[in-house]
């Protein structure tokens, strides 16, 4: 648990068909690991966005490693639509499992709690129900006639995210980004990239402990300085909106995307 490895070793454990959960843009996106996964080139991965994604999903899809994308949205935010995602969905090059944010959270939390499903309000009357035959509508057992949606547990093979700090015991600082903890609880294995590893335990008091994901849930840790770039890492560095805009423009064509990816080495270059 909490083994410290190279970025390549971490990324290499994402194999063909792996179901991999990633967090949303502001929550610690493992962009350096994303580049390393693309370099390793697994096929047909099932990407679960918790609950949405941006450049990370777009890149993985553009690089051809994704077979299925399960998400509430993929967008480059102020830079517009996610071009590789939009084209792949339009062309049927990836299977899309459209969702709505709280249903993704509920699926992850079902796995966290070891239950096969969770009920959730809303959704009834949405075309999502037809798009997601794996969701069902049942009678509330406590009020017959009250119809309610149930979504199955989402059990990722791997949860992957980026955080500021791990300690050498394998504990990871996640702050108030508790969806990262839920992803780790739900996943069979959890891979984390961090800005740095410290020698002292992150469990220094009850208050500090609140911000920690315990090593029990963490399998591999790799150092990747500025590993969320161009996304922000809270309390560390802001988003580089211009870089995302540059990506958005280049990725409009397959060729432009390829050219962008040629030089995309977040973390690595900076860690040298």
């Amino acid at each position, binding site marked *: 648990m909490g083994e410290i490895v190279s970025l390549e070793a971490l990324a290499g454990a994402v194999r063909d068909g792996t179901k991999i959960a990633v967090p949303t843009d502001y*929550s610690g996106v493992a962009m350096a690991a994303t580049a390393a996964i693309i370099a390793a080139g697994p096929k047909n991965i099932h990407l679960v966005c918790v*609950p949405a994604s941006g450049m990370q999903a777009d890149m993985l899809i553009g690089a051809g490693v994704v077979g299925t994308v399960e998400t509430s949205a993929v967008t480059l935010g102020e830079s517009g*639509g996610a071009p590789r995602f939009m084209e792949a969905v339009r062309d049927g090059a990836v299977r899309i499992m459209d969702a709505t944010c*709280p249903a993704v*959270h509920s699926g992850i939390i079902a796995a966290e709690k070891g239950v096969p499903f969770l009920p959730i*309000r*809303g*959704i009834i009357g*949405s075309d999502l129900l037809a798009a997601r035959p794996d969701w069902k509508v049942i009678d509330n057992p406590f009020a017959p006639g009250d119809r309610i949606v149930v979504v199955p547990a989402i059990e990722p093979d791997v949860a992957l995210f980026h955080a500021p700090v791990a300690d050498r015991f394998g504990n990871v600082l996640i702050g108030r980004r508790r*969806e990262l903890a839920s992803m780790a609880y739900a996943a069979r294995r959890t891979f984390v990239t961090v800005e740095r590893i410290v020698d002292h335990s992150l469990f220094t008091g009850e208050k500090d402990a609140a911000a920690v994901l315990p090593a029990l849930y963490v399998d591999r840790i790799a150092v990747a300085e500025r590993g969320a770039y161009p996304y922000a890492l809270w309390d560390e560095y802001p988003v580089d909106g211009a870089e995302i805009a540059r990506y958005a423009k280049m990725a409009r064509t397959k060729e432009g995307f390829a050219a962008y990816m040629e030089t995309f080495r977040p973390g690595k270059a900076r860690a040298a």
Partner: protein
Amino acid sequence: MNAPVLTREIMIHTIAVLLDGVRHVAVGASSPIPAAAAMLRRALNERQDRERVRISVLGSQEHNFFTNGGVELFDCAAQGRVDAFFLGGGQIDGQANINLVGSGEYPKSDVRWPGCFGSAFLYFVVPRVILFREEHSPRVFVDKVDFVSAPGTSEPGVYRPGGPHALLTGKALFSFDKTRRRFMLRSTHGGADAAEVRANTGFEYDLAPDVGPTPGPDAATLALLRGRVTDELAETYPHFAQELAAERKAA
């Protein structure tokens, strides 16, 4: 301060009026007009010594008091603790159904949009959902959406404390009648009149007996908007605040 009232300022003020009485409003990270309106509502309430308005800006580090991760907004709304929220859509139809997924046949849409986000949930549980879309055109306001991300109304028996309260565009303000499942045009702005709205709307709707220009802010409210609210806005939406300032100068 003496520039004429901008259309965007009318929209901000209109939303602030629609938010009258709310205690907690959530706004998306890239929704500066709703955010400005929420800030104006907060400032107005403070000036009038009324209930405190809390604003959650999703994805913001600064203006976000949630501490239980991404799920907290949805849980908080399900608990009835979010009074108002904003939804848009690539398509919105006359029954207030919204489409955030794509136009054409699903899933291989002609045009694919980002996805439903939280709409299929929040539209059901937030009492006052304000539909907001600046572009007012027949391609947005359609007779029937190609994909229902979230329905405007629900059958009896479906748990639904929330739903559409109003629709605001760059040209018009509509209210929504849940029983009749229809919008009603209340007023127009942005240089449009009722005829232009009719020409640019792809769905049927009712007309209020007194359709006129959407009221703008009074002088004191405008001063609040151009002063304190613009300053607050600049912290989170610096680009938008600059745009507004430039528009005022040019006007």
